[in-house]
């Protein structure tokens, strides 16, 4: 198994955090993982992205031109990275931010209203957790339980009140995948 994932969106949408969660979960399950961010002027108001590799074999390059999946949280991200998705790959689109559909017919697309769902459960900030749930349900790259445990560890102590919200967001994202 080797997943080469691009996660991209406006700075603040949680693209880098989704990537970090996937890398952390992969590591917990004993996979080889790398997380490589774009860094530089594009982070201010522009598009920030990261490249994540999850693999059962040691990882050479942490960066790549062709991805197995793309998680696009804004329109510039879809425009920039759709062409690089490998044939048969999957694109996850935040349909609250991106009104367009994908252009290629050799890819599977999931349109996830991340922000609507996050608002429904009470906090728009967990929109990225909704997307993470959709990704995990669709790809099976990591086990949902691994993410749930991670969420519990992430919000320890005084932040424990955020655990149910994040778990619910994650589950609602998973439920988007039929």
């Amino acid at each position: 198994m080797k997943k080469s994932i691009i996660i991209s969106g406006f700075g603040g949408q949680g693209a880098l955090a989704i990537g970090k969660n996937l890398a952390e979960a992969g590591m917990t399950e004993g996979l080889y993982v790398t997380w490589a961010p774009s860094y530089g002027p594009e982070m201010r108001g522009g598009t920030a992205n990261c490249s994540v590799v999850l693999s059962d074999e040691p990882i050479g390059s942490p960066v790549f031109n062709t991805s197995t999946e793309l998680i696009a949280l804004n329109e510039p991200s879809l425009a920039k990275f759709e062409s690089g998705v490998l044939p048969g790959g999957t694109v996850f689109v935040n349909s609250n931010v991106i009104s367009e559909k994908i252009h290629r017919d050799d890819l599977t697309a999931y349109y996830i209203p991340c922000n609507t769902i996050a608002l429904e459960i009470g906090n728009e900030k967990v929109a990225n957790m909704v997307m993470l749930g959709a990704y995990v349900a669709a790809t099976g790259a990591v086990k949902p339980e691994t993410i749930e445990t991670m969420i519990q560890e992430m919000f320890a102590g005084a932040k424990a009140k955020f655990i149910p919200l994040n778990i619910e967001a994650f589950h609602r994202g998973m439920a988007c995948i039929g």
Partner: protein
Amino acid sequence: MAKELWKGNEAIAEAAIRAGCDCYFGYPITPQSEVPEYMSAHMPKHGRIFVQAESELAAINMVYGAAGCGMRAMTSSSSPGISLKQEGISYLIGSEIPAVIVNCMRGGPGLGTIQPGQSDYYQATRGGGNGDYRTVVLSPANIQEAVDYVQEAFDIADQYRNPVMVVMDGMIGQMMEPIEWREIPKRNLPSKDSWATTGRKGRAEHNTLNSLYIEPELCDVHNQNLSRKFAEMEKNEVRWEEIRCDDAEIVITAYGTPARIALTAIEVLRSEGIKVGLFRPITLWPFPEKALHELAGKDHVKAILDVEMSSTGQMIDDIRLGVEGQKPISFLGRAGGVIPTVEEMVEAVKNTLKEVQ
């Protein structure tokens, strides 16, 4: 021990703390700013010293002062900042003061770009300061190596009373990877009492650290002593890695991020039946010249492809010295922060192979 996910720059800062770094002096610059950021938060917690200096020049001279007092001292920066430290590095070597200097390289020349680069190879291995000098230059290609080598760098520096450089491209500083905190090999390190400026402590004279030898004869003796020390480092510290070279027709030479990209390119090429391997210098100085010479001399090796994040190629000079004309050498270089892709490397290997067939 459980694996932990660490970002390169933060990991090397933590590694320095674990290695007993007493004092860190730095100045922010992308892509290494997470090093001083981490140090500013964590050094005081350990009762150690963190100073954000007013400039890179100040930082390296603070290292001179602290390390001269026998402290374990470190500074870090990225390419333009490391240029500013060159005078201080020359003085550290002239005065035989151990220290650790990390360069998280970006593209140059001048301010260049904040994206990853490898165009400070000459500066690290030939010395950007004046005088006859050498430093051990360790170059990690992943975060585990980065934390291991930073810890070892303090020991190597103390062993030879000489600064050690850890040189990595910005990608290694910025990326995250799982690591384990593991014991590094123990060395028998000499006491610093005979030279560290810690006061007289009952001695007749206080210790003096100085790089000025006004008498030519004495300065010659000093230089001969230093060069004997450099020869010891050359004998003891050379490191490299060979991957799938046993039957390789094309040997890629690369370090840092391009060496990782080469691993993926090798997978692609091997799946097409093309025999290709990687020769990766881990110490840029001392350069693994003999090992490369031996490999290049083998019958199955048809040609060498050097890949660097440098437009002109810099390590390629050492590749030529190692190969000594036994086999043709071709070059793939991207600069200005552009990282060579797997596809470009695959193409370059195929072209190199065509040229020798």
